[in-house]
């Protein structure tokens, strides 16, 4: 058994705590949060130790790893402290508020040889994995364009709120929603190197954007567009999709299905000419404990597996998370022009 602890018990933190708690190879020894209400619930109903000071928790409990799911501005000091004390770290997305801080953390994790992972859960959704595989197999031929989209009903009326409405703390649709799509584009199609025509639009929020639109150019020369809006109540929950157009057809992929259109069949993949639809039921990653979606358990399972077997993650390393932060900064800079 290895020992784990969770810092930050908001929506993602509670979800991670449940997943870590249910993992057969982990003893979840402690949780840390600023809210006494939440901590008292843990005190009353569970056996884990509770802290409101993460440094004290790390010192006293000496866990093998920590999961950090606090508001983004706390990531830097907390991840740094955990790494300096030799803890493997799983950190929620977005990774850092400032790329220079993220750089420091990437180097620290690498120099200490500690497992590091960021919570871009879409890479643990079977359809997106299959999309990446099909693109690498070249089924679309030369790629000419992509569209990355995400829509959902987070802010659907005018009213102020939490840190999520403060841009300096990592609030807003760009950090929260668009980062998911940017990270998918980055890992599945190619790393963006230039943003242009960026528009950060406030719809209901004051102080932060509710929608992000921009053009992106990737290091491999492919270009495409990003369209993200978290004030779209036509979606029941967050819906993320990538559409990729190549000379041999196109693929529209989201978390539940993949629609493939091919001009010429690709026999080795069993893909015929015309439309083929593939469903998540064929690609879902099996998990031992399910909460809200296989991907949330699968990403934690991957992290724990790396810690137990002393190997680095193939998915969502700090370095990959940092690159997404840099693209976010590119878009912010471009929008100011």
């Amino acid at each position, binding site marked *: 058994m290895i020992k784990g602890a969770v810092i930050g*018990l*908001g*929506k993602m933190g*509670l*979800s991670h*705590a*449940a*997943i*870590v*708690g*249910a993992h057969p190879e982990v003893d979840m020894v402690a949780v840390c949060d600023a*809210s006494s*209400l*939440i901590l*008292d*619930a*843990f005190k*009353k*109903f*569970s*056996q884990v130790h509770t802290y409101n000071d993460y440094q004290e928790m790390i010192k006293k409990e000496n866990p093998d790893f920590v999961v950090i799911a606090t508001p983004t501005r706390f990531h830097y000091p907390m991840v740094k402290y955990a790494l300096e004390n030799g803890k493997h770290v799983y950190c929620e997305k977005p990774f850092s508020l400032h790329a220079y801080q993220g750089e420091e953390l990437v180097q620290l994790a690498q120099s200490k040889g500690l497992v590091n992972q960021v919570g871009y859960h879409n890479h643990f959704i079977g359809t997106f994995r299959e999309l990446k595989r099909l693109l690498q197999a070249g089924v679309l031929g030369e790629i000419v364009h992509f569209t990355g989209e995400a829509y959902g*009903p*987070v*802010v659907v009326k005018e009213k102020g*709120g*939490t840190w*999520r409405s403060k841009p300096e703390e990592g609030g807003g649709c760009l950090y929260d929603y668009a980062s998911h799509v940017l990270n998918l584009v980055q890992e599945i199609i190619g790393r963006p190197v230039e943003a242009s025509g960026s528009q950060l639009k406030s719809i209901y929020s004051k102080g932060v954007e509710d929608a992000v639109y921009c053009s992106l150019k990737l290091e491999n020369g492919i270009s495409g567009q990003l369209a993200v809006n978290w004030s779209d109540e*036509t979606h*029941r*929950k967050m*819906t993320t999709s990538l559409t990729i157009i190549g000379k041999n057809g196109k693929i529209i992929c*989201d*978390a*539940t*299905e993949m629609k493939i259109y091919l001009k010429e069949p690709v026999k080795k993949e069993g893909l015929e000419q015309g439309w083929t639809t593939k*469903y*998540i*039921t*064929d690609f*879902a990653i*099996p*998990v*031992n*404990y*399910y*909460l*809200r979606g296989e991907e949330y*358990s699968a990403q934690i399972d991957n992290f724990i597996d790396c810690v137990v077997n002393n190997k680095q993650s193939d998915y969502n390393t700090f370095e990959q998370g940092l690159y997404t932060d840099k693209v976010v900064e590119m878009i912010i800079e471009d929008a100011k022009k």
Partner: protein
Amino acid sequence: MDKVLFGDNQFFAVNHASDEKARAQSVRFKEDKAIMKVLDDAIDLGINTFMCTTHDRIANICDIIRANPDRYKNFNIYPCMPYAHKYANAVTELGIIGTIKQYVPGNIFGTFAKGGLAFVNKDFIKLMELLIDAEMKMFKGINTPVIFIQNVIVDMILGLKMYDVFKAYDEYIRKKYNAEPGYITMNMPALLDVLNSLGIENPIICSSINKIGFRMSGGIELYEKYLNEKQFRPIAMQVLAAGALRPKEAIQYLEKFPNIESVLFGASSKGHIQETKELIESVI
């Protein structure tokens, strides 16, 4: 429980295999009367139980049911609470305390209000009871013999090992609503072990049960073992594995497990409802 339970996912744009189909459904069921029409079709075919989330629009359906007592006197609703996306979106925007403020009835900072007292005293069980009452309000005067908690809550409590919450829920549903508590889960074997350890015997558990092991966490072998060997009242859902299986082969799979009491399914056309109902009744 009836052998056939009619579900509501199709009415609320929930489709586990296709966001596009989900959207088409949301267009079709824009008006409450479109939902009522399908429910009436189901009732005419002899289905008497509707298992539904505590979605805001269900309140309108309940109004129609209350207004026509003769037509719906034998009709049961199994509420499933809470409608999780309502809370999840609120937590992202307002934080956990902000969400409690928004949904616990009354002013939680007024210490004389029931909710205020529970909040100040950090009486979590009382808060849970108040939230249950708030969700149950829409069903007043309607038969609700079984009341479920949704899988997202059940499975979170399970993962956090806050097992006493199950006990409190179980007791409150029996005492206040004179109903049988039910549990929806994606982790059936683990949940059954925990409920049994708390002294909750023969619980009603609704979980995915399908031939391909979709959303059967812990693995299909363990599920089959529990269905064959353990004592509980299983309801099978996601029998078609989000559409990956054809109805006939999907439902035939259930024949292996005589302990299954009911099957939950949703459909929109009368023909489809009839076909599925007959298939279920032929094996259960």
